[in-house]
């Protein structure tokens, strides 16, 4: 029972932490560009503001358009809840399967893309088309990276994979390095960051994620934005706990949990800082370079799997 309670509290905390993560990246980016920048908690104010605003619906909006923000947000929350964040011993561990996780993310994306096309504007359709193009390339790379990690632990369960990584001796496996690199590239593409997408742009014609949610307003927009922040946090947690798994609690002992919380928070802040740096030193890619970028992610993941089979098995 405590386990379930803890799992729920953990999910709630991550959901509440996500806007800070997004704000943190933004704040650091501003600092790196010599700008004052809004405080890291600005996204909370934005979400609050949006939630109070009137919802405007296009006359052509179907129920799918209205339902999509709730579906996207709740599916993303469920996806967050199955990922081991501070401890591998939570009862949700049984659900923590990578294929399930990828499925949840795909479900959220499916509704997001539908919502983009629902109104019938050119921008929404363009955004959806770009989103599915990119994810059709990102998803195989993501699965391949996950499979490599799973093959190490002989399980597709995230908790098992993480425990295996933490408990085995510290050896730099080439497979882990390659698949981590693949995972990071996929995460950048999937969370709509530079160089694939620019979350700060106002240029309708260049948008991917923003183009799909261009028609949303009020609480609908707040949920869509929040879901995007959650996705950023979710991918950061995955990288934090799979690439640098140390610190994740192996038991439910209060001490271990405390260490787990501190560890994951530190890792997320560091990852956020790295993201801010990488976004500052690069321009956005040409859209048609994205397949190369994701192709690289796939090749890296594939290399990870090959090196595992060739070098590490047996």
């Amino acid at each position, binding site marked *: 029972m405590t386990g379930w309670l803890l799992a729920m509290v953990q999910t709630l905390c991550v959901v509440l932490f996500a806007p800070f993560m997004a704000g943190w990246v933004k704040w650091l980016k501003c600092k790196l560009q010599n*700008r004052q920048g809004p405080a890291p908690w600005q996204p909370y104010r934005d979400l609050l503001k949006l939630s109070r605003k009137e919802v405007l619906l296009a006359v052509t909006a179907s129920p799918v358009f209205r339902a999509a923000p709730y579906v996207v947000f709740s599916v993303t929350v469920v996806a967050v809840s199955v990922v081991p964040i501070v401890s591998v011993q939570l009862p949700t561990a049984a659900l923590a399967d990578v294929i399930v996780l990828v499925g949840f993310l795909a479900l959220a994306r499916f509704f997001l893309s539908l919502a983009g096309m629902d109104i019938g504007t050119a921008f929404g359709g363009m955004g959806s088309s770009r989103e599915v193009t990119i994810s059709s390339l990102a998803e195989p790379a993501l699965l391949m990276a996950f499979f490599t990690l799973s093959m190490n632990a002989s399980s597709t369960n995230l908790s098992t994979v993480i425990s295996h990584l933490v408990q085995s001796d510290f050896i730099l496996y080439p497979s882990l390095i390659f698949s981590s690199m693949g995972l990071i590239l996929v995460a950048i593409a999937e969370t709509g960051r530079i*160089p694939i997408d620019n979350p700060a*742009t*106002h*240029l309708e014609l260049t948008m991917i994620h923003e183009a799909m949610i261009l028609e949303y307003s009020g609480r609908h927009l707040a949920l869509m934005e929040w879901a995007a922040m959650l996705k950023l946090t979710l991918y950061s947690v995955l990288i934090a706990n799979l690439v640098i798994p140390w610190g994740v609690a192996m038991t439910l002992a209060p001490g271990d949990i405390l260490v787990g919380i501190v560890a994951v928070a530190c890792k997320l802040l560091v990852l956020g800082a790295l993201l801010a740096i990488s976004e500052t030193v*690069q321009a*956005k890619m*040409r859209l048609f370079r994205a397949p190369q970028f994701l192709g690289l992610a796939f090749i890296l993941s594939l290399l990870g799997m090959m090196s595992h089979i060739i070098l590490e098995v047996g």
Partner: protein
Amino acid sequence: MNRLEHQGQMAAPDIGAIPGLLNNAGIATTEVTDIKGSALAVAIEARFWGEAAAVTAANHIRWCAVWGEHRPPQIDITAVLAGKNGHLLIRTTVPDAQGELPSQTPAYPAANRPERYVQEMFGIHFTSHPDGRRWMRHQAWAAEQYPLRKDFPLAGTPQEKTPPDCEYPFIPAEGEGVYEIPVGPVHAGIIEPGHFRFQAVGEDILSLEAHLGYVHKGIEKCAEGRDLPGLIRLAARVSGDSTVAHSWAACQACESAVGVTVPRRALSIRAILAERERIANHLGDIGACCNDVGFAFAQIQFSRLRELWQRQNAAVFGHRLLMDVVVPGGVSHDIGSEQINLMQQSARQLRHELQDLLPLLYEYPSLQDRLRTTGMLSLDTVRNIGALGYVARASGECWDLRRDAPYAPYDEVVVTVPSYSGGASSSRLRVRGDEILVSLELLDQFLTNLPAGEIWQAFPILEKACSGVAFIEGWRGEIIAYVHLEANGIVSRYFPRDPSWLNWPALEALIGGVIVPDFPLCNKSINGSYSGHDL
């Protein structure tokens, strides 16, 4: 860095030879002497209007502008052509009742929209014009009303609510998978309004058509009945980012018309203002181009430089954009040695910073990957559509009034004109960067050698009606102003030709083969003025 390529001029003849060319083709010309200013002027018969264009086009003479002037019961039509060292005005007269004129568009594609504009404003029908669609008129006045005729009321005919303009007939594209993307007139960013209609297949743009005119303010009509200072204040607002160049052009047109000699000191200060304006806008544009490809670092750096520069404008001249500093007969602000020092210091500081920043941008891989080969504009296209300024120079067409048809005080300095071949967005960025450095150099010369004396010369009382024309190199390119003053000193006609008239079509010409997400970059690298075009 700072590789300045000099390319040969187009094989245009000397400006003085053009009337002879026309005569040889059987078109009789008579000299017109009542338009003062640094241009030749000839009158031809209306029936030769199209033919004359064909002759000059065949001789690589550039087409610049056309405007009308209603003098009941007739309408004077004036077109401007440019040879290798100056401008020629050709004028003709048509009756205002059912006036007809052969179009020059078949010879000069650049004349397409300007002629449609004249058609809407004066009710002259251009025969053999390939495009019969309206251009500037939306729904604010009726098709049979012609706002620039003298019988059209100055206040216009405003309706309680202007109907939306939904029926503009864009040229459709058909085929499997072709779809339309309507963009604007209201954009997500804080920019001026304009509508762009894309025909695309997937991400590839087949064609782009712009529909402008959303900021039509009736500048020319507003000018009617104004006194000189009022006209110049209006001219300063034709396009806010070119306020110095437009007010200088309007002032110079008036000064030529009346015969006022502006003191050298005032001319040098005008040049200082113009170069400061050029630098500020180029800084802003370089940053904005980088922003459009998601490279925020450069955008912030260049915004900072531009902001510092504009604060100094405010400190020295009292206005961030230098509005209303150029006044008829001179300038309104004198500068002392302390201010000269300040400006020289900031110019050195800017040059120092740019020496770090520009080479970085020119070679930054992820930025250049976006800019190079994006939005290529060939030299042939540039010549065909008569594009101006940095747009032309980035494609190898190296025309700069300050060097090729210099006006005071540029006749005393050597102006280097940077130019590149290729016409990609990266070249347009580079031309801007190089032009900043050239302008800093000029600025330093003008500040160092600032002549002593008055900064203003009063206008004499007018005795008779007069008209003048002026050509000024603004930061976007050549600006033309025509002014006609009545004997009482009141303006009866003002026509400003912003370079955007000829640069907007460049955007449409370069867009073939560009993908949809690269459009904002191409647009910014051309950066036409909506306001300067819409008038």
